């Protein structure tokens, strides 16, 4: 396509586990969701601004 720095229009890459068939792109998105969710829970939130 025009002007994309990374061309994703090449034939896709796919992961297979048994009946599961997942594109690498989707797998990365899902993995990123899990990582972001985990980080959101673990990383402390600006707790110091509490007002009593």
């Amino acid at each position, binding site marked *: 396509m025009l002007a994309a720095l990374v061309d994703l229009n090449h034939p896709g890459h796919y992961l297979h586990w048994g009946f599961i068939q997942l594109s690498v792109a989707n797998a990365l998105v899902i993995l990123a969701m899990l990582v*972001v*969710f985990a*980080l959101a*829970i673990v*990383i402390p939130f600006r707790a110091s601004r509490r007002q009593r």
Partner: protein
Amino acid sequence: MTTQVPPAVDPVETPSWTGGLRRAAVRALPPEKLLPDKQPSYVASWVYVFGVLTLAAFVVILVSGVVLVWRGPSWWHVSKVGLFFNSIHLWSVELFFFFMVIHLWGKFFMAAWRGRRRATWITGVVSFVVSIGTAFTGYLSQQNFDSQWISTQAKDGLNSVGVGALFNVMNFGQMLLWHVLLLPVCVAVLVGLHLLLVRHRGVVRPIKVRSAVPARLGADGPGPDGSKEA
């Protein structure tokens, strides 16, 4: 209030539909509840930001969508600028679902439907479902190979449940109008309702831990779900 004032009917109490509506609205959502600048001390986790991130993604989707609407459905196939805005539209949709699903996970693990917040949960789930439909019609409105393949595949599922007659995925005009008008309006209304409910009830409080009072996650008193704690 002085005794000199004639005992005229208090304007606030004048019976009228408009006044009643205003009073009900203010009662449900007084300004400090609608736009509070303080939150309970337990609202201290990054998990809380995914709702607003989803909302922000929705705004970016709408803005990029309006740009695409401005020049019509064929523009982005032939213009670099059009393709750029189509790309923003695509990636903001990916971000929208990315954040929305994390928001859903977070609210699930917080059992955020407690305390008469079930309607909030339900409007959230319905928003999710309608958003999927909106994205789906977007794929059908692309006028490219994707649209051809997705529409000719999806027709069987829709036909099999009797919906295909009224919702013809191979009718580009119909799908485009659903995508740019009907469904976004539905999502906007649902999300608006969801937000008002969130503000009305406030942020769900932490699950009670080993309290003397058993906390029932689904319950907010006697009702259809007032089952015993497992």
